[in-house]
């Protein structure tokens, strides 16, 4: 972890933007799947985030970087959560 | 004697694709196949533009952690071709969509996909 502060902007902004866009798309989701599927989506999303790795030039824990070889794409997780939340708030069955 | 590098082979493949595309657009009778030939032609042009900038031992023109700043500009491949090709792909998609839509209208009017019958103008 090199010098946390100056980089925080570049790591937090994608997460927030991803959440916002995900929420926007989530309001258009219409489906009537069970709660089990939602849990499965979240698990698959975390697995996928570890597959995609953190974006390049991400060096702190906020961006999902843990060690070399183990890192999570934080915007992916926040986008998935945004879609699910938007579905819960404004979407339909 | 020309060396069979990847760049040379890509140029040959793109020349072949352009030839196939032109021949298909001119000589095939089916409208859908003409559209497929059109996508092949644009693929060939894209391949030619991309292989323009490649050279042996180059690096991808994106800065990644640990790159040497001094050597990067000399080693990176020419970025000009890919910049154009990205636009080209987009335009290809929208053109194809318009072509398919027009084909559907032609089929509705003439009941056939053969260009020769459409040109004769026999309504269904």
């Amino acid at each position, binding site marked *: 972890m090199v010098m946390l502060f100056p980089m925080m902007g570049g790591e937090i902004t994608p997460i927030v933007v991803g959440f916002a866009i995900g929420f926007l798309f989530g309001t258009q989701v219409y489906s009537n799947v069970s709660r089990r599927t939602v849990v499965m989506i979240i698990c698959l999303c975390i697995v996928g985030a570890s597959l995609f790795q953190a974006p390049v030039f991400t060096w702190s824990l906020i961006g999902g970087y843990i060690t070399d070889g183990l890192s999570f794409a934080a915007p992916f997780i926040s986008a998935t959560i945004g879609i699910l939340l938007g579905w819960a708030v404004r979407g339909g069955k | 004697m020309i060396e069979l590098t990847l760049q040379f082979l890509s140029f040959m493949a793109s020349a072949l*694709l352009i030839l*196939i595309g032109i021949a298909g657009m001119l000589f095939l009778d089916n409208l859908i196949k003409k559209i497929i030939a059109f996508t092949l032609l644009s693929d060939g042009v894209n391949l030619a533009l991309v292989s323009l900038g490649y050279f042996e031992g180059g690096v991808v023109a994106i800065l990644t952690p640990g790159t040497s700043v001094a050597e990067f500009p000399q080693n990176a*491949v020419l970025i000009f071709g890919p910049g154009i090709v990205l636009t080209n792909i987009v335009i290809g998609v929208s053109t194809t969509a318009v072509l398919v839509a027009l084909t559907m209208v032609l089929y509705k009017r003439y009941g056939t996909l053969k260009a020769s019958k459409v040109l004769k103008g026999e309504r269904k």
Partner: protein
Amino acid sequence: MIDAVMTVAYIMVIGVAVGAVAALLQKDLLRAVFLSGAESIALAFIFQALLAPDLGLTQAIVGTVLLPGIIILGIFKTRRKDEDD
């Protein structure tokens, strides 16, 4: 110097040409579209080998999902076989 990526790229150069010819020789239009999608995948591999990875990503998605999708939707609204009469 021949490594794995280059070998795959050389194979894919042949695959592009073969796929393009085979796509236009089909009687079944759906099969022609799928073959042109295979040609696009090979082209995406060549883009990767030519050091343009974002173009490879774009070409892989556009060539296998978008363009065949549009053309297949057109085929569903018209007719599938190339008429021969």
